[in-house]
């Protein structure tokens, strides 16, 4: 049994899945921790990534075009959500839910149905071994992580980080908070959509239900990562996100391996999240539950 667990943990597939999902978790964390914006658009823009992949790939075009278009698509959804909040003055949570609802219809229209298979079509991961796929995923994610780290280490990134915790400072320093929120959500959703596009190409199909439950599992991953590495800098923050996602995937695959009753899954995830939040409070002795950025959840 332990032998089997060891094999599972080292399996390149789990690492690939964890890394691809960590991009979405990072996008979610940027809006949640840096902008203090609980952006529920996540589940919609993730699916949008897969839908864009299906539109491009089934037309026989290069999967890399699909990946770059997914960045654009994600940015647009982020901008839309942020504009709802900044200019139409809609509450943050509600603005995300509205975009999510609209995206549901948009995704169905764009994909022409709920499900689209890439079988025998060229995806970014066609004709690769498991290790080959993992290498490619590592390259993509390293690229994305370094771009995000670069952005966050500029003065703009600094203002972005300040925006969630203390908007007044930003405004009194003569910066436009709306520009920061809109661009911040554009970046975070671009990442999420990119992750969705990679994810569906890795799976070999795109389905409108791919995003189901992503908010809760991203939050779980983020909190696990934050408990393990108490991040205080941009770099450690990104590490926390990656490690959190990998650990979450590992736990999922153990649950599967031991054949838990499927109808219990959601209950288990909920209980785990409660336990984690209590552990977080205990481990931080009541102060500093979140060490980097603002604590929305």
């Amino acid at each position, binding site marked *: *049994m332990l032998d089997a*667990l060891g*094999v*599972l943990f080292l*399996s390149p*597939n*789990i690492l690939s*899945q964890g890394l691809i*999902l960590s991009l979405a978790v990072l996008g979610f964390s940027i809006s949640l921790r840096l902008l203090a914006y609980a952006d529920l658009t996540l589940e919609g823009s993730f699916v949008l990534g897969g839908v864009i992949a299906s539109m491009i790939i089934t037309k026989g075009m290069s999967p890399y075009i699909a990946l770059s278009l997914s960045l654009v698509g994600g940015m647009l959804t982020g901008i839309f959500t942020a504009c709802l909040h900044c200019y139409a003055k809609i509450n943050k949570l509600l603005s995300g839910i509205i975009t999510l609802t609209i995206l*549901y219809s948009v995704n*169905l229209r764009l994909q022409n*149905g*709920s*499900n689209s*298979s*890439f*079988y*025998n079509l060229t995806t970014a991961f066609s004709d690769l071994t498991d290790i080959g796929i993992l290498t490619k995923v590592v390259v993509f994610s390293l690229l994305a992580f370094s771009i995000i780290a670069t952005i966050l280490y500029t003065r703009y990134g600094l203002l972005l980080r300040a925006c969630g915790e203390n908007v007044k400072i930003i405004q009194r320093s003569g910066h436009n908070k709306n520009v920061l929120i809109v661009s911040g959500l554009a970046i975070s959703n671009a990442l999420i959509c990119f992750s969705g596009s990679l994810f569906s190409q890795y*799976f*070999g*199909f795109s*389905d*409108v*239900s*791919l995003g*189901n*439950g992503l908010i809760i599992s991203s939050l779980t991953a983020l909190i*696990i990562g934050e*408990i*393990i*590495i*108490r*991040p*205080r*800098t941009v770099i*450690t923050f990104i590490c926390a996100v990656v490690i959190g996602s990998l*650990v979450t995937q590992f*736990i*999922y*695959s*153990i*649950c*599967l*391996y*031991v*054949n*838990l009753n*499927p*109808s219990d*899954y*959601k209950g288990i995830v909920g209980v785990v999240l409660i*336990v984690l939040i209590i*552990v977080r409070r*205990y*481990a931080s002795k009541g102060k500093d539950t979140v060490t980097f950025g603002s604590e929305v959840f």
Partner: protein
Amino acid sequence: MHRVNVKNVALLSLLLLLTVITLTVVGCNKQKKVTSPEFVVGINQYVQHPILDSVFVSLKNELAKYPNIKLIEKNAAGNALTCKQINDQFVQQKVNAIVALGTPAAQSAIETTTVIPVVFGAITDPVGSKLADSIELPGGNKTGTTNRWPFEKQVSLIKTMLPNAKNVGILVNPAEANCEAGMKIIRIEAAKYNLKLVEVNISNSSEISSATESLRKRVDVILISPSNVLFSGLDSMFKVASKYNIPVLGGDVSSVDKGSIATYGFNNNDVGKMTAEILMKVLNSKELAGTIPVMGPPPSKLYMNSDMMKKYNLTKPL
């Protein structure tokens, strides 16, 4: 300065370890020990759903006749990521065949392996969802069964039972692949009989009641579409339909007990048996799975609800 907090890691790993141990103990008790199985078959069911469940149970009962087959049963609880992980584990465990129930489970299975035979079960449209190149020659390592309803016969039933009907109401969930696949055929068939389809979209079962309400005075009869969402909320549709005296036709066999006047259908157990049959063919054959034609659907019979027939003064069609 940014060091890993040792205490938290210890706490978390303790927690993890406890989870792993509990789960392992629970899991080990569940797995039955089979003496020297010749074949290991992994079954990946996409989601718990009455139709898939009954296919699964009858498949399992059928396979119980063969002591040399060991089953690994998994359910993805409707999550595509879980589907993929289950299939990954099957590949690692070097199973002899994967049985995938439900379209997403099957799609992820054929993406995961091109070597291990994949037998899909209870798929409405294997060709449309790219699981099979064609019904006769699925190709590659994949074959299976389809449980496509006899839509042609169900539409023609409208004409034979209610010859005066002109407008046919139907609740459709465009987000479901199998529903869309069925609708393609239904639209063609309805046009053949000069029936006008009034399609109302639903996206979850709470909308069924008001969607049915909206059909009032616009339609003469309601046809049941092959939507899973509709399936789980059929009762609310029958309730509204009988309030306004709109006859309902079609659906699967169980819909007739609930309030559908009549339908052409088959028992889902037959699909399970067929899936078992094709699985045995695949396991015993030396040829590639893709050379075995897709089986099904099983032959359909006419099922009728006598109470409903009486209510609308209908007689059994000849």
